[in-house]
């Protein structure tokens, strides 16, 4: 090992019941480098990281840290060594303040009675938040922060440990472009200080922008570690998938001069005070209508209100020319032909206690039952149609969704809404946290649905996908519509100018 190496994980293997998660993987990271770790879902990235951070223990293989062989017994020990992890799922206590969270287990106590020096705590906390340029007050409760702000707090927390190795698992999954830029600046600062960053992301554009080196895993095996200077986008995808996939931009690209159909949904002067204001737009059959904007611009709230999950103060919703003012609840919206996949699929879409079949039919049981009795055979045949159409794996419809990969879980969530045969489908961040292969399948599916005559509202914080897929793009900022573009005239710059 050379002098620049901070740690090396050698021939690491780890098995779980029925699956070999890691097979003799060697992973070496230098001081002061940003090292990207990529691979499809199930490739073993998370397992490798969890071994390094002490959550799991390897079955075999050794870890050399700063030249010494060590045994990372538990997460606390990893942290003491200087290895911090920011997980994709946030690990904050919602009922404590930002400062309390950042210094949890690490408080500035004076010698008497473990008294916590609040002033010093808040001062120290502000230091880290300022470093991130995070617009967060150290005294606010975490529960009142947006997801993006909470993520910033998580990052500040890792900084507070003064760690030499900081692992970031999909840190930008919930951040806006602007916030991502800030994060990258921070990462560069950390790098200058000689810290090593392990950066896990599904967004290869980001990997190219921020990382120096990349390690690719596939099916629990090491494909290779290479300097990013020697690679291009296609090279990495090929390493990850083991074969060429058709570029997501070709098969799914917007068709020039495409004809759209009649108006399916019209929204007039929709207002919910303090959340969104005076919203007007219409959605046509066969149309993919993109909604762009920063996190917190009010897109999700607007869609939830249209779907009957939140009340509105003023305005009308018109479906197929009929003014229904506002839906009393999701049930009514579903009956009028609207479906909505939400941005947080585990929290709002899926039932982890259910199998595929039960998840897919939950909104359609009225039509699969007689006098309240569910007709088992009819239900099975019905579900089989969708699992085939969406190519959901495993094919066994009795498989529990908790065991499935993110991409397949998302397909189940979509299948649930296709089951109700909606004319209008609202999809809120449908590709969040899923790998390249699954993303391209979701894009194809969205394109296919619009070709079948459905109107699709597509919310995304990733500009490339919104630009490729949408026929028309609406930009929201602080609860207002600030611009509408046809696909031909939209560019990343134009959208960002309005969104920020």
């Amino acid at each position, binding site marked *: 090992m050379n002098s620049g190496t901070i740690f090396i994980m050698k021939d690491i293997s780890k098995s*779980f*019941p*029925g*699956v*070999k*998660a890691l097979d003799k993987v060697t992973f070496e990271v230098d001081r002061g480098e940003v090292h990207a770790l990529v691979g499809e*879902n*199930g490739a*073993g990235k*998370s*397992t490798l990281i969890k071994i390094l951070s002490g959550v799991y223990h390897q079955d075999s293989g050794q870890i050399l840290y700063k030249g010494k062989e060590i045994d990372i017994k538990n997460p606390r020990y990893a942290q003491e060594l200087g290895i911090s992890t920011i997980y994709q799922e946030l690990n904050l206590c919602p009922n404590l303040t930002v400062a309390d969270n950042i210094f949890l287990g690490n408080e500035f106590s004076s010698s008497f009675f473990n008294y916590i020096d609040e002033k010093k705590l808040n001062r120290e906390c502000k230091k880290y938040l300022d470093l991130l340029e995070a617009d967060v007050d150290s005294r606010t409760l975490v529960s009142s922060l947006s997801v993006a702000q909470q993520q910033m707090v998580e990052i500040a927390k890792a900084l507070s440990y003064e760690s030499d190795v900081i692992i970031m698992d999909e840190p930008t999954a919930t951040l806006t472009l602007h916030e991502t830029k800030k994060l990258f600046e921070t990462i560069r600062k950390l790098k200058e200080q000689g810290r090593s960053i392990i950066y896990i992301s599904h967004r290869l554009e980001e990997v190219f922008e921020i990382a120096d080196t990349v390690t690719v895993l*596939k*099916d629990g095996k090491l494909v290779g570690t290479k300097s990013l200077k020697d690679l291009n986008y296609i090279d990495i995808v090929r390493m990850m998938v*083991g*074969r060429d996939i058709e570029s997501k931009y070709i098969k799914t690209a917007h068709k020039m001069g495409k004809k759209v159909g009649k108006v399916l949904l019209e929204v007039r002067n929709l207002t919910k005070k303090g959340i969104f204001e005076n919203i007007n737009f219409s959605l046509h059959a066969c149309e993919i209508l993109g909604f762009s904007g920063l996190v917190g611009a009010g897109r999700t709230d607007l869609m939830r209100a249209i*779907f009957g*999950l939140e009340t509105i103060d003023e305005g009308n919703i018109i479906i197929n020319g009929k003014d229904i003012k506002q839906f009393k*609840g*999701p*049930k009514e*919206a*579903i009956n009028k032909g609207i479906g*909505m996949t*939400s941005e947080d699929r585990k*929290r*709002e*879409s*899926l*039932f*982890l*206690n*259910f199998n595929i079949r*039960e998840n897919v039919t*939950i*909104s359609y*049981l*009225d039509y699969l*039952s007689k006098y*309240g*009795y*569910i007709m*088992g055979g009819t239900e099975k045949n019905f579900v089989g149609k969708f699992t085939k159409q969406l190519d959901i*794996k*495993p094919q*066994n419809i009795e*498989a*529990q969704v*908790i*065991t*499935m*990969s*993110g991409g397949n879980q998302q397909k189940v969530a979509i299948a*649930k809404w296709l089951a109700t045969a909606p004319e209008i489908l609202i999809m809120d961040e449908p590709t969040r946290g899923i790998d390249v292969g699954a993303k391209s399948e979701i894009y194809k599916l969205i394109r296919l649905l619009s070709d079948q005559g459905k109107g699709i509202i597509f919310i995304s914080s990733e500009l490339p996908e919104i630009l490729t897929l949408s026929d028309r793009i609406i930009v929201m900022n602080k609860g207002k519509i600030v611009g509408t573009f046809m696909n031909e005239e939209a560019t990343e710059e134009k959208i960002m100018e309005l969104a920020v």
Partner: protein
Amino acid sequence: MSGDNNTIEKVSLLVRAKEQIRGFQIRKMGVLFALVVLIIFFSIMSGGRFITISNILTVARQVSLAIIVGVGLTFVMITANIDLAVGSYLALSGVFAAAILYYGTPWYVALLIIMIGMALVGVLVGVIVAKQRLNALITTLAMMGIARGVALAYTGGAPIYIKNDTFISLGTGYIGPIPTPVVIAAVILIVGQFILRKTKFGRYAYATGGNQEAAITSGINVDRIKIIVFLISGMLSGLAGSILAGRLFSGNPTAGQGFELDVISAVVIGGTSLFGGVGSMWGTLIGALTVGIIANGLTILGVGYFYQLIAKGVIIYIAILIDRQTQEAGMRGGRV
């Protein structure tokens, strides 16, 4: 492509392994195994007094009340709620059944009035929990006190005797060779399992407890589901209270004290999750048998009531521990 097939194979292997760990199968098997061990233990220790026809019938008769109420509570707990008032409901319904029968009312009219009345009490609790969004634990704790208080106040603390023979036979009679309460419990159990597994309402109950947010987004009226589960719990408590009153020849305002703990233990031992979304009626049957056999076995062995309470507490602890560990096994390695 071979790489793909490999992945699919691994995933399906993983799925199968997980299903075995996670499903109620193992959990139920574990409890079933414990039940068999208990039966063997008591049979040997009691020197034959445990396995006799008359003792088996006694256990069955005792357990049937816990099963009837347990079916209702299983619905409640699958929606991630709880009903602590069921013990007090037994007293309340017994007392009022006796009061109604006092006026010479036919037995079936009295039973019907009590079951409908208790169903309405359940609806009240359900409305408070669902619409006013009060915690079920606190709401039913309050109702536990109120129901017991009403029963005591109405009777002045003394039992009201029942003279209607048919009503009494609900608790003491036989249908063929089998005690009437056992037959009633069997019917309730089968109907309960059918509703839980085969109907829309059952599926919605699992959905409500499994992920309430997702249930709302899916168009399920979760408030209605919650109200109905409390209705079922109240109604079945009314039925059980009437059977108990028959067995005691009276409506007794102190009946069913601590009964809620037996039933909750039974349901949890049977694998119904305290966090909602998971559970079955067969599990509740096994749980109720376990609790009943422990009480009966200890009595036969001459262990005093005080020590029985301690034993029960320890058993609840173990059951909840198993519950949590199986939950964690299900979660572990969800993302690899």
